[in-house]
């Protein structure tokens, strides 16, 4: 169980003097600017939950994850994970968690993937038989097998992320902390990663905390969403409730194989219009996407279409403007 109570984190950023002598001076006298990255967050996560940790850039997601994984010490408040204090009990704590930071690799850059895995087995002291079984299972689910002999530096981002996920789970942790693992991935890689995460959580009961600023990750995977902004907790509950209240709006972009239809259903708002192109806003509560698409294709052949979620920034703005939905 993960328990976070009134967590606060201030970064002290040293105001540096420049140059060699400046560096010496820094050792003696240092002035700091303080940045409050996390400002009094509390939440509890039960074993087996899959929680989306959402917020705009700079909200404090990475900082919170670093505290939960024992990299950083909180400035104030308390964090316990299965009764352990992450930074204080670092060794014991890290044995039982898997961590992936989207922007940073866990693997040895110039070595084949398989060598990184062997090294990790020794770092985590995983018994040989367990290691083999776990590795085979992960390689199959993540389709990593063909990549094992490739040096990490030659992998594409999507390939690397699959290898990273397998690496983070080789020691069969019961908790998984992911910091923007889908960032920059193409649709196919994203889908592989999501399918895999859903299965790990469902079949092995792995607790997952997934930091992301992509709401489609949450929609697909997380029954519960913790939303933070500027270091403070804004919402904790199902994404659906938020959706029903504000986020219901979707954006539809359609390209036609001829002139775009002139008239539109009543509940649909026109955003943009080109000769053979429309960008529309609608609420699935008022007209379903299927109905809207059918309505349009009755009038003109559709060449291509995309449906977009509102970005997290707009939802946060809406919450500030109109308040939270009442608890269920």
């Amino acid at each position, binding site marked *: 169980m993960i328990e976070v109570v009134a967590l606060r984190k201030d970064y002290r950023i040293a105001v540096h003097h420049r140059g060699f002598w400046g560096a010496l001076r820094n050792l003696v006298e240092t002035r700091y600017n303080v940045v409050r990255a996390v400002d009094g967050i509390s939440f509890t996560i039960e074993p087996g939950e899959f929680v989306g940790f959402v917020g705009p850039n700079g909200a404090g997601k990475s900082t919170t994850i670093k505290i939960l994984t024992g990299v950083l010490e909180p400035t104030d408040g308390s964090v316990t994970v299965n009764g352990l204090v992450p930074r204080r009990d670092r060794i014991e704590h*890290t044995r039982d968690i898997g961590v992936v930071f989207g922007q940073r690799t866990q693997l040895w850059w110039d070595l084949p993937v398989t060598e990184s895995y062997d090294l990790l087995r020794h770092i985590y002291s995983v018994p040989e038989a367990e290691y083999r079984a776990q590795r085979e299972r992960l390689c199959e689910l993540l389709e990593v097998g063909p990549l094992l002999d490739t040096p990490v530096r030659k992998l594409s981002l999507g390939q690397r992320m699959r290898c990273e996920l397998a690496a983070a789970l080789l020691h069969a942790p019961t908790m998984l902390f992911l910091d923007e693992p889908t960032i920059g991935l193409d649709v196919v890689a994203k889908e592989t990663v999501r399918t895999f995460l859903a299965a790990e959580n469902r079949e092995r009961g792995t607790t997952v905390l997934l930091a992301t600023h992509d709401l489609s990750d949450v929609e697909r995977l997380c029954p519960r969403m913790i939303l933070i902004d500027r270091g403070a907790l804004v919402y904790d509950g199902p994404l659906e409730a938020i959706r029903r209240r504000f986020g219901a709006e979707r954006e539809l972009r359609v390209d036609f194989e001829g002139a775009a239809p002139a008239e539109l259903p009543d509940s649909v708002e026109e955003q943009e219009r080109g000769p053979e192109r429309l960008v529309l806003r609608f609420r699935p509560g008022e007209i379903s996407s299927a109905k809207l698409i059918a309505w349009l294709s009755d009038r003109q052949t559709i060449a291509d279409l995309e449906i977009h979620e509102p970005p997290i920034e707009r939802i946060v703005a809406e919450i500030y403007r109109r308040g939270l939905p009442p608890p269920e």
Partner: protein
Amino acid sequence: MAAPLPDDLRLYVRLAGARIREQMNYRLSFAVHTVIDAFLIVSDLAPVYLLSRYFGALEGWTFAELALLYGMVGLSWGLVETTLRGFQKFGPFLVDGELDRVLLRPRGVLLQMATAQIEARKVGRILQAGLVLGIAFVFLDLGPASVAWVALGVAGGILFFAGILLLGAASQFWTMGQTAELQNMLTYGGSAALLYPVSIYSTWFRRVLTYGIPLAFVNYFPALAALGRTAEAGWPPWIPALSPFACGAVLALGMLAFRRGLRRYESTGS
């Protein structure tokens, strides 16, 4: 930061091996650097030789005796530089946020750090220093007791240089990688100063080297004992035996500083 367990030692070897295999991807650079390093011994020893040859022995030290001093420092510094190089390159490591990765693994920070930057080519330096030491032994016709004193000095040197590397690495926590210069100055400057017996330096510098940064304990005192000249140089006979303690104190200080630095570690953005 407990004493290294056998399991830790095995992991050290594995991680070091991985690091060396990584470097083998860049064979040409490896070869070039090894050749350059091989010339360093010449550039190090040539001035010492010329000085002792044309100006007579330095304060009564012959070239063979000076080579003994060189070999001792070279060996301990070489061993430390090879096996603990991660601490020497700690500044950039810290700035890149790689320490995060180290902290995420259930192993000692020092163990993982030490292997992070190992450079196989430095082994050449160790071999050269060992060679110089061996030749000095032969020329000076040293007995087993003297060899033991030399070994004590080398062991002390290992503690000393490890301590200096840790101190330098620790300072990076406060300056975020800006004091790499200072660290290089201490280690390279230190090993250069030690090419000569500390008795040739002016009084204040000699005091700094003896009581301040106890560099004199790394080679000067043990070498005096090995050559049977402690009394002649005006020191009590037990002084060379303090070598491991003086050097051990530097290591302890280094570990303490590193631990304090680690506690104030703030990570880097995203």
